[in-house]
């Protein structure tokens, strides 16, 4: 399954809903993670906050190809995407393993994925470098087997997404 998750509305060519899911985070009600660890130690695999996030992190886990579209601020995901990424920790377990020699959480049923992260906005060279390193770090915690980071201006986002999905075997 493919997942397109964006922090803004996108006009995209119609997709096969059995193949590609599209989540427009700007239309979702998602509050921020409160760090309660309930999803690890009270209701494992389920967030205790029952808002729209609980529909999205299962899609993130089940997809083998993801395209995340986000404004980049100071080399970080802007708050809309970041809020969702923080709310996705039910896909991990509390327990820690070694991965590439570093400690990381075990994953639950998270499909290994090819990921493209498309950052937009006015992003300096330094911020681009920081963001690339951030996504590289995320790769270890989000089961990205292969990841690419692209940048573009805000008014070019839709075209960049269209160009990307055209390269997919199935859409």
């Amino acid at each position, binding site marked *: 399954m493919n997942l397109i998750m964006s922090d803004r509305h996108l006009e995209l060519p119609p997709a096969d809903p059995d193949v590609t899911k599209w989540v427009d985070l700007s239309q979702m009600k998602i509050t921020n*993670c409160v760090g309660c660890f309930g999803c690890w*130690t009270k209701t*494992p*695999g389920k967030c205790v906050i029952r808002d729209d996030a609980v529909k999205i992190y299962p899609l993130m886990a089940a997809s083998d190809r993801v395209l995340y579209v986000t404004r980049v601020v100071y080399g970080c995901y802007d708050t809309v995407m970041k809020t969702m990424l*923080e709310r996705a920790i039910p896909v991990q377990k509390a327990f820690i393993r070694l991965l590439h020699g570093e400690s990381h959480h075990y994953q639950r049923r998270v499909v290994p994925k090819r990921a493209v992260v498309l950052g937009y906005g006015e992003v300096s060279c330094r911020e681009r470098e920081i963001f690339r390193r951030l996504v590289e*770090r995320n790769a270890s915690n989000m089961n990205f087997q292969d990841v690419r980071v692209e940048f573009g201006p805000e008014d070019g986002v839709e075209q960049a997404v269209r160009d990307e999905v055209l390269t997919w075997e199935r859409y």
Partner: protein
Amino acid sequence: MGKILILNGSPREPRSNSKQYAALFAKASRMDTEYRAITKTNHLELCRAAADCDQLLLVFPLYADSPPVTLLHFLRALAEHPPAEKPRVSVLINCGFLEPEQNDVAVEIIQAFCQANGYPFGSVLEIGGGEAILNTPFAFLVRRKIGKLAAAMATGRSRRLKVTMPITKKMYLGASTTYWENYGKRNGITRAQMETMEIEGR
């Protein structure tokens, strides 16, 4: 000698490890300190408080390899409502992983904020094993490094400090497993239940 405003950016502020680290810092500091938690509704108030201090110390945990969204929202407000005299910004960050270096990117994000908005950047203390280290025999190592951070901030030096548990990774895996097992037990949840592969029951 000036004043330090300590801002806790943890989403679980009342029960946060960051609150404990902030308290240790306040105890170690020779400068006056004021402690405030960042909430959803007090950003403007904190921006005004930032005008009355010489230095800001941002204390927060690592969330998804970067600063928590609680802090990011506040940084946006601080960029839009800057104090006339911009305080020097220092960072005290902790992550649950053994390697304090896993905090590096989050620190760079704060530095990028400072650079973009004209805030001088000060010192950093990165804590590894930060979820549990204060409840281990190694808590003194954290207190010592927090003391060094406080001294650096008092003298205006920029230092980059790190601390973690001085144990092997294998020992850490064992200790963290016990820690989380006991955490689950307190909630009546077994290790097998915590190990479920299901997400939202599927």
